Every structure is written in C-alpha cells, then in structure tokens.
C-alpha cells in the first residue's frame, strides 16, 4: 500500500509540475512583428523532404517558395513570375530558352548558386526514378548547357508553351548536397530548422537571402492526423493559422468569432464523376449529357460544403488563365435528361456501377448521385473502394464503368487530350487543340485553344465536374499576409505578419 501511495504522490507531482511548467493552452509566441514565430497547423505532413522522391503535397506546402525556389514561381493567384531567373530569352523557333540567373544568390549552406545547380535540378525531375508529377511534362527537354556560371541554355525537342510554367515546379537544389530527404539546402527566405517527424517542422529566417527578406522570424508547421485536434489547436491558440480546412462542420465555431478570420479562397481541386468513355453506355455522348443534366450540382455542393465552393461546369478552375464559366452547358434539367436517355435508346434507364473511394466526400456524393439518377430511371450500384484500389483498378487497369475522384492540380484540363488517360475520352479535335496549345507561340494563342477544348469537353460531357472545392484558410485575426488560394498546396509564409 505504501508503494501505491508513493506512486500516487508521484503522479500528483507530475501533474503539478506540468500545470506550473508553462502557460496553459496556448503556446503561441507572444512577440509580434519581425520577431514573431508563425505557428501553422496542417494535415499534410511531408513524407520526406524531396519533391522528386514522393514527398507528397506536405513537402510542397512547407518548403516550396519558403526553403526552395525555382527559376519561376506560381503566385497565389495562378500567375507565373520569374524568381531565380532574372532574365529569359526564347529563340525564334521556340526551342531554345536562355535564362540568366539572379546575381549574388546563396544557398543556406553558403555556397553560391550556379548554372550547374539549375541543370542538376532539372535533371533530377526527369531522372528515371523521379516520382515528380512533372516528369512527363519535362521530357521535352533535349539538352541543358551551362556556358557560364550565371547562364542556363535549355533546348527543347519541340515547342512547349508550358515549359516556363512547368519550371515553377522544379526546385533549384544545391547539386553537391548528398541528402535531399531529411535535409534541405535551398535559396529561399527560410532555412530548414528541425523536423520532428509526426509532429513539427520548423523554418527559420535566412539572413543571407538575396531577395526581400521574410517578414517574420520563423515558421513552425504543426502536423495533425485528426481534423478535430487541428481545429482545437487553433481554438486554444496553439496554432495561428490552419492551411486548409477539410470540412465545413468546424467552421461555425470560427465564423461568428472576431478572433478568427475565415478565408474563402479558390482551390484547384475538382470533384469529378468520371465516366469510362470507352465503355458502354458511356460511349454515347447523349448518355453522358443526360446524366450530367440529371444531377443538381448546386444542391450537392450545398449539402456538402454549405455556402462554400463553386460549381464550374468544366475541368478548368478560375485560377487557370483559360477559365470560363461553363455552368450553362448541360445545365440541370431533369426533363431534358429523360428525353436524351430515350433518344439514346434507354427510355427505361440502365444500371451501372460507380467505383467510389471510401473517404470523404465521395461516399456522400455517391449517395446523392444515386438518388438523383433514380429520378431519371438510372440505377447506381455504389462500389466502395480504397484509394489504393482506385489507383490499381481504375487508374492503371481502366477496369470501371464510372468512378469519382478529386483532381487537385491546376492546368490539368490537358489530360482530356490524352486518349490513354483513365477516363478514356477520345475526341481527335480536342486532342489536336490541346497539342496545338502546347505548341503555341503566344500565351494568348494557348489560352484561346484551351478555351475551345474546355468548351468541347463540357459539351461532350466527357466527365461530370461536380464542383470545385473551396480552399478555406482559417487564421487568427492577428495574422495578415498569408496566401488564401493555396494553389497545388503551396503556402508562402514569408509575408505573414503577426500583430
């Protein structure tokens, strides 16, 4: 019994020490301005720190633009701007790009940036074992020359108007570094502090930064696997900002509260009902159009996200230069849907299987689709699958009738130009437009062609674009200067000010 009492005393002592140890709840640093530490809450922890080795969107969020920089950067509103490239010249035939690097750029290790680093960085993305999503886009690179330390000359095998945009995904790394997965030696306004896996990743201001220095002293990313825990952290001031709210349920507690600001930004994530256009009955355009017209997307969006999110009527999100509101094409009209089904030879409807990923919002949306389509006589069998099964069954084997998926990238309408992509949309005219757009001489020409392609896929109901996710950043009202659109999950932290 004595031992038990001793243990009890020990526990009590521990709690007491704990209670006195630090201020309860909030751990936010109290100092504001340039000395402030910005506490960022996120659900996207990096897998590792290498964006060519499967680092995931977490590594983009934490390091892109903060620790690593590219020759170009994608701004929060979707524009491509020069960053490490001070100047660029494109040859008449559009095949040779000559970039002049910013002078006096240093890596965090102190090494000066040279053209050799840029060359090695591009080659890391196109390497055989690269896991970068931009690998296939950059395969147009034929050769890279480095005539002097500050000049990079890239020769392409064919014109690629997106080349500069694609370069904004290429991090310029120190080519003599040996470890890219746990360390980071970039040229950005922050250097990597400590990464406590499963918990936090710290960035500290880099004093030798070549450009405009960061407006805060450091940034700590706190990682959560549980959305409730993340929101609780914001409520208790353990974090100052949440990079991306995953559901609208939690927003009520922040909305009416003047201590917080709820930002309704534009994401690039589209929720798709993707038909397998190569499998009957979805080979028929009328069937796809009918199903598109039978589903009330506004109602679906409201039921999932309340007042947030947008219905866009196609694949192109508003931050892409070729965005147009196409919601009027194949708009919601149950009678028209019934007529089209009858015309296509299905007056009594038909039955199909919808492969539905087992995580939110897919199951909810699938149930909604099922009830909407029942009104036009179409029966939906919901087949729930894991993310992994989706990748194997749907993405690789194309073994499905219809599926649902969220497509997160910007400028990804170009997949409709690839007839081998999983949804099997094959319209020669669209493929041609998209190819031509890539070969275009000016961005105006590219934009015009992609607008045409986008309109055509909407008319053909290549897929049914259910809605565009909102991008909701919730922050303490003491914070300003944070990005609200979070394109491709990037989160530039250098302009954030805490008052």
């Amino acid at each position, binding site marked *: 019994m004595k031992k038990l009492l001793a243990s009890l005393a020990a526990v009590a002592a521990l709690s007491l020490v704990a209670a*006195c140890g630090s201020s309860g*709840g909030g751990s936010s640093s109290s100092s504001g301005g340039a000395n402030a530490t910005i506490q960022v809450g996120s659900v996207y922890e990096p897998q590792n720190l290498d964006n060519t080795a*499967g680092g995931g969107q977490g590594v983009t969020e934490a390091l892109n633009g903060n620790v690593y920089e590219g020759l170009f950067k994608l701004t929060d509103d979707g524009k491509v701007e020069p960053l490490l490239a001070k100047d660029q010249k494109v040859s008449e035939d559009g095949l040779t790009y000559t970039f002049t690097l910013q002078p006096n750029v240093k890596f965090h290790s102190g090494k000066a940036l040279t053209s050799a680093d840029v060359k090695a960085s591009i080659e890391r993305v196109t390497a055989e074992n690269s*896991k970068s999503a931009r690998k296939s886009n950059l395969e147009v690179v034929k050769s890279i020359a480095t005539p002097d330390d500050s000049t990079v000359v890239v020769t392409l095998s064919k014109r690629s108007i997106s080349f500069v945009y694609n370069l904004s995904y290429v991090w310029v790394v120190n080519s003599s570094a040996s470890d890219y*997965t746990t360390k980071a030696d970039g040229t950005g306004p922050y250097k990597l502090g400590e990464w406590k896996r499963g918990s936090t990743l710290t960035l500290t201001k880099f004093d030798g930064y070549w450009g405009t220095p960061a407006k805060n002293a450091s940034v700590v990313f706190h990682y959560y696997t549980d959305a409730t*825990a993340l929101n609780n952290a914001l409520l208790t001031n353990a974090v100052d900002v949440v990079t991306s709210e995953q559901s609208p349920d939690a927003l009520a507690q922040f909305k009416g509260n003047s201590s917080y600001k709820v930002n309704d930004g534009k994401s690039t994530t589209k929720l798709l009902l993707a038909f397998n256009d190569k499998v009957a009955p979805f080979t028929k355009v009328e069937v796809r159009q009918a199903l598109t017209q039978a589903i009330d997307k506004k109602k679906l969006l409201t039921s999932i996200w309340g007042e947030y999110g947008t219905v866009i009527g196609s694949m192109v999100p508003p931050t892409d230069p070729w965005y147009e509101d196409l919601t009027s094409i194949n708009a919601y009209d149950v009678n028209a849907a019934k007529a089209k089904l009858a015309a296509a030879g299905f007056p009594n409807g038909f039955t199909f299987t919808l492969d539905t990923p087992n995580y939110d919002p897919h199951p909810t949306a699938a149930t909604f689709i099922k009830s909407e389509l029942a009104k036009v006589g179409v029966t939906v069998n919901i087949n729930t699958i894991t993310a992994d099964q989706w990748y194997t069954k749907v*993405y690789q084997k194309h073994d499905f009738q219809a599926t649902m998926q969220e497509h997160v990238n910007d400028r990804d309408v170009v997949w409709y130009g690839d007839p081998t992509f999983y949804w099997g949309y094959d319209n020669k005219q669209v493929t041609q437009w998209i190819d031509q757009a890539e070969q275009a001489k000016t961005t105006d020409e590219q934009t015009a062609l992609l607008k045409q392609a986008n309109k055509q896929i909407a008319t053909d109901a290549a897929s049914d674009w259910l809605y565009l996710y909102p991008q909701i950043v919730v922050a303490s009202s003491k914070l300003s200067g944070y990005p609200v659109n979070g394109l491709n999950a990037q989160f530039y932290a250098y302009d954030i000010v805490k008052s």
Partner: protein
Amino acid sequence: MTRYLVRRTAILIGSLFLAAVALFVLLRLLPGDPANALLPVGATPEQIEVARRELGTNEPLLTQFVTWLGDLFSGDLGTSLISTFPVGPEIAARLPVTVPLTLAAFVLAVVVAVPVGTLAAVRADRWYGVVLNAVAQFGIAVPAFWVGLLLVTVFALRLQVLPAGGFPPDGWASFGAAAESLVLPVVTVALVMSASLIRYVRAAVLEVRGADYLRTARSLGSSPARALWRHGLRNAAVPVIAVLAMELATTFLGAVVVESVFALPGLGGLLVKGISEHDFPVIQGVMLVSTATVLLVGFLGDVAQRLVDPRLLHRSAS
C-alpha cells in the same frame, strides 16, 4: 525456477517468431501496392514500374520474407517504403512519447483501481459499493477516444488549463510543456483502463473474502481489516498480477489509439500513417515492437506470479 525460466523463455522466442510470420503474411494478403501511395495522379506506367522495382514489391513474397527476416535478426527493421527512412530509429524516436504515456496511465489506473475495487468489494452491500460497480461497468463500455474528446472540450477548450494536443518540438527538453501535454492523454487512458481493472480487483477481493482461511483467521481473533491485509491481499495478488500484466499491454495499445486524438507524435501516429500508405516495413516494425512488448510483459507477469506463489512452479513442472 531455472527450468521454468528456460522453458518460458523458449516459449517467448517461439511466439515472437510466429507473430513475425503471421504479421508478414497477413499484411501481404491486403490488396494494393505501396507504389501507388508514392505516385501522383498523372504518373506514367513506366514510373509505376520503376517504383515497384525500387520498393522490391515486384519480388516474390518468399524472397521478400527471407530478406526481411534476415535483416530482422541483425536488428534491422527495414526502411520505410514511403519516406525512405529506416524504421528502427523512426520507432525509437516515438518511444519518448508512447512509453511515458503508457507507464503513467498504467500507474494512475492501478492507483485508482486497487483501492476503489477493494472498497467496492468490501462494501458490496452498501449503496456506494453498488454505485462504484455501476460506474466501472459504464466505464468499460465507453471508448477511449470519446473520453479524450470530452476531456479536451472541458479542460482545453472551456477551462483552457491544458493544451488540446500536440507535443513540444524539442520534446522532453521542455519538461514542463511535455509533461503538460501528456496530462489529458494519461488521464484518458487511465480512466478507461481503471474501469475494467476495478472490476477485476473487486472480483478477486470478493472471492478471497469468501475463502475459508479468512474465516479461520477471523475465528482466531483477527479484525476483518487485519485478516484481509495479512492473508487476503497476498492471495488475491496472484490473479491480480496476471490481470495487471494483461492490463499493461492493453494500456500500451490504448495509448496508441489515443495518440491521434491528442496529436501526439508517438507509435500510434506512426502506425496509422503506415497503414494508410501501405507502408509495410513501418506497420511490421510498429506491430512487432508492440507484440514483443505485450509478450514480454506477459512473460514478466508469469515470472512474478511464481515469485509470489511458488506453488505454481510445482504445478507447472508436474
């Protein structure tokens, strides 16, 4: 005792090996390929093939197993397929959260359960004995994560006296903050654990109370309390040790579950992440360490029982 120890150790090693085999086989029965978790939508078939080759998931199962087992014997738990980090150090880095959480919760559970369970037994016929028993019954039915959420709502969100979750970036170097962040998780696990423990203690004490030797002790003039203290508790200790060993193992598993509610960077978080990404080496590593812990605690429990009650040695030897 030596003979017993040798035999029991052999059983321990055998069970560990069987557990390792079962783990490996069961995980490989799951559908899916870890290469998928590594690649973005838009990956080319060539990229997928290269990834599979790199991860070794295109090798025959037996080859994968032999490689893994060989590494295991040399103390190497393998390398994460997704993060590319070695699993051993990754697990070791999580222990400073999970181990203190487990031990503190266990101690707290015992501290609460032994007196309360004894009281519930001794006063089984009084109203508070009945109430205690009912509360314990209720506690068993409540899931740990729910208790955790409730405690967070009250102590972190309403009263704001404790953090809602997380662990200081510099760990136990900020001792106060680290201990503070473990208070609610410890209480959560302890509350749920003590509920079932109370019922064990109560049953054990009730059984002993009805035993003949206690009646004899009483008839020889011992007071009820003295009889229970001198003769009863030692006898009740034997089944309680077995239960404690089991409970310590359960506490460990409970800690692993509760970690994600409190965003603690412990083994639980590592396991959940590993599972969602099909990261076999990570899942195997965490599960193996957990299984080994449970088996080892069981082993120690068995040995402790025989120290308290040497009669068991002869019984098992015959």
